[in-house]
C-alpha cells in the first residue's frame, strides 16, 4: 500500500543486487536504526536493557548462527546450547588468561574457537543426514556440558564451579563487570550484533549462501553441478558455530556476568534457539531477530498476564508457557513453516501490489 516502486529502475547490477532494492524498505531500515540507536537508549530503563534488549540481541545472534546451519544449509542442530557454552568458556579463559587482550578481539576469538569445535562435530555430516545428524549434535550438547562441568581448568579451579567475567572496557567505556552501565552494554551489543548480522546477510546472499541452499534444497543435484557437499556443510557448521560462539561469549560477558556453564547453556537453550528460528523464520535473517524478540518477550508478557492479571501460581504459569510454546511451534509448522518472516514477506508482497489481490 505504501510502496511506490514504479520508477525505481536499476541501471547497474550492484543496485539490482542491493539488500534493500526498494527505496521504501531502505527508509524503514533507517527508521529502525534511529529507534534502536536513539529512541531506545533515550527511553530505556535498566530492566528494559537487561531483561529484554540485550538478551534479544544475543539470542538473535545465536539464532542467526543456527539459521545459517539449519535454515540455509538444511542441517538440523540441537547442540546450540553446547556451542554457546564453548563461546562463553573461551571468552572466560581468554579474558582471564590474557588480561591485556582487547575485548572485541576476545569475542571474535571465542567465536573462532567455537567454529573449530563446531567443525569437529560437523565431521559426521560427511556420512549422515537428517535425524542422525540432529542426534549427533545432541551428543555435542551433552558432551560439552559435561566437559565444562567436570574439568575444573575450564572454571579456573573456582570451588563454586561458576565462571565470572572480569570488567573490561571498550574505548574507555566499561562494558563488562558489575560496574558496566546497562545502556552501554546494550549499545555495544547492538553495534556488534548488527555488524555480524550484516556479514551473515552478505554470506547468505552471495556464492557461499547459494552453495548452502543448494545443499539444503537438493544435495545430490548440488553435487552433480560441482558443489562439494562435505566442504560446504563443514563451512556451514563452522560459520554457524562462530556466530553461536560469539553469542555465548556475549551472553556471559555482556548479559549474565557470571554463570554455571552447564546450567546456563543446557539443552533447553538449544531448543529455545531452535524455536526462535522456527517461529521467526527458517532461512531468514530478519526471522532470527523477530523470533528472538518473540521468544524473549512472550514469557514476560505471559507471566505478567497469568500471574499478575489472572492471579495464577507461578509454577502453573510456567506449565502454561510450555504448552503455549509447544502449541505455537506446531501451529507455525503447520500454517507457515517459514515463520513470521515469511508471513511478513507475504504481507509485503500484498502491500506491494495493493489494492490488487494478485
Amino acid at each position, binding site marked *: 500500500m505504501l510502496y511506490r516502486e514504479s520508477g525505481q529502475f536499476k541501471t547497474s*547490477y*550492484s543496485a539490482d*543486487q542491493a539488500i534493500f532494492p526498494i527505496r521504501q524498505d531502505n527508509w524503514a531500515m533507517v527508521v529502525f536504526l534511529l529507534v534502536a540507536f536513539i529512541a531506545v537508549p533515550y527511553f530505556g530503563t535498566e530492566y528494559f536493557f537487561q531483561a529484554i534488549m540485550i538478551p534479544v540481541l544475543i539470542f538473535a545472534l545465536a539464532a542467526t548462527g543456527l539459521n545459517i546451519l539449519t535454515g540455509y544449509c538444511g542441517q538440523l542442530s540441537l547442540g546450540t546450547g553446547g556451542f554457546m557454552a564453548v563461546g562463553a568458556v573461551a571468552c572466560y579463559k581468554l579474558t582471564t588468561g590474557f588480561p591485556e587482550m582487547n575485548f572485541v578481539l576476545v569475542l571474535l576469538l571465542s567465536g573462532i574457537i567455537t567454529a573449530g569445535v563446531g567443525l569437529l562435530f560437523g565431521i559426521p555430516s560427511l556420512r549422515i543426514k537428517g535425524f542422525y545428524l540432529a542426534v549427533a549434535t545432541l551428543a555435542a550438547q551433552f558432551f560439552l556440558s559435561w566437559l565444562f562441568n567436570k574439568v575444573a581448568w575450564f572454571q579456573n579451579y573456582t570451588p563454586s564451579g561458576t565462571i565470572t567475567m572480569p570488567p573490561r572496557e571498550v574505548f574507555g567505556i566499561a562494558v563488562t563487570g558489575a560496574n558496566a552501565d546497562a545502556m552501554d552494554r546494550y549499545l555495544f551489543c547492538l553495534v556488534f550484533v548488527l555488524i555480524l548480522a550484516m*556479514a*551473515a546477510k*552478505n*554470506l547468505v*546472499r*552471495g*556464492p*557461499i549462501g*547459494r*552453495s548452502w*541452499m*543448494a545443499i*539444503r*534444497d*537438493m544435495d*545430490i*543435484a*548440488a*553435487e*552433480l*553441478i*560441482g*558443489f*562439494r557437499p562435505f566442504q560446504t556443510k563443514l*563451512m556451514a557448521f563452522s*560459520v554457524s558455530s562462530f556466530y553461536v560462539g560469539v553469542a555465548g561469549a556475549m551472553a556471559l560477558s555482556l548479559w549474565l556476568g557470571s554463570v554455571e556453564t552447564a546450567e546456563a547453556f543446557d539443552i533447553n537453550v538449544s531448543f529455545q534457539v531452535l524455536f526462535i528460528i522456527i517461529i521467526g523464520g527458517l*532461512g531468514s535473517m530478519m526471522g532470527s531477530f523477530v523470533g528472538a524478540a518473540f521468544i524473549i518477550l512472550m514469557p514476560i508478557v505471559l507471566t505478567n498476564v497469568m500471574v499478575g492479571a489472572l492471579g495464577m501460581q507461578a509454577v502453573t504459569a510456567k506449565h502454561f508457557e510450555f504448552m503455549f510454546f509447544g502449541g505455537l511451534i506446531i501451529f507455525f509448522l503447520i500454517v507457515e513453516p517459514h515463520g513470521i518472516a515469511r508471513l511478513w514477506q507475504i504481507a509485503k508482497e500484498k502491500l506491494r501490489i495493493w489494492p490488487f489481490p494478485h
Partner: protein
Amino acid sequence: MALSEQSIPEAILSVENITLSFGAVRAIRDVSFDIKKGEIRAIIGPNGAGKTSMLNVINGFYHPQQGQILFRGMVRKRMRPHEAAGGGIARTFQNVALFKGMSTLDNIMTGRNLKMNKWNVSLLAAMFYYGPTQKEEILHRQFVEKIISFLEIEAIRKTPVGRLPYGLQKRVELGRALAAEPDLLLLDEPMAGMNLEEKEDMCRFILDVNAEFGTTIALIEHDMGVVMDLSDRVVVLDHGEKIADGTPAEVKANQNVIDAYLGVAH
C-alpha cells in the same frame, strides 16, 4: 547437421565395456559407445533399459563394476560427481532437480560455482561482500543474464522456481547446466511432461545450444519424433544391453530396435 562426413571429429567421451550392477540386478551389461565432439547423441530405449543409469555412470554418480570411461582421451578413474562437473560435464535431470527455495537467477548462478575465482568468494571476502565478491558476482551475473536472454526467461528472472510451471522449470534447469559452460551436456528426458509448444521451444533451444556454443550433447528422450529430428547419432539400449547404434535412419530400420519397442520376446 553440425557433423559432416568429410571431417570426423574425435570422440569427446568413450564408454568402454561398462557393466553396472546393484546387488544382483544388472542395470548395464557390457555397453560401449562413443560421443563425438560437437554432435547431438541420443540414448534411447524402452523403460528400464538402463539409460539414466548410463548417464549416472558418465557423470560419476555411479561407479561401474567393469569397464572404463575415456573423457577427452584420458581414462577416468573413480571420479566423484563434482569432479565430473569440474571436468566439463553438466546435466539435467529426469525429474526436475532445481533448488526450489531459490529464484531462477540464483538457480542458474549456482551453475557458475566452479567458474568463480575461489579467492574472491572466500569466506572473509564474502562476509565483507563489497569488493572482490561483489565484482565476482556481477561478472557471473552478466554471464547468467546472457543465458536468461538466450532461453527467453527474462520475465521469470526473480521468481522462486517452485512457483514456475513444469515446462519453465525444465528450461531453468537447462540454464543452470549451461551456466557451467560444459563441453558435454547430458540431458535426461528434457521434454518429459511437456506440451507440444513447450517441446518445440525446447528442441529449438537444444539445437541452438549445439549450434551457438558448439556444446556436445547426449540426451535421453522418449519422444521418437524428437530424437529423429534432433540427433546426429542414436544408441539404443534394451535391458541394459546395447542393441543398436547409428544414424537415426539406420536405427529406425534396425530389426532389434523395432522388436524391442514392440515388445517382442527375445
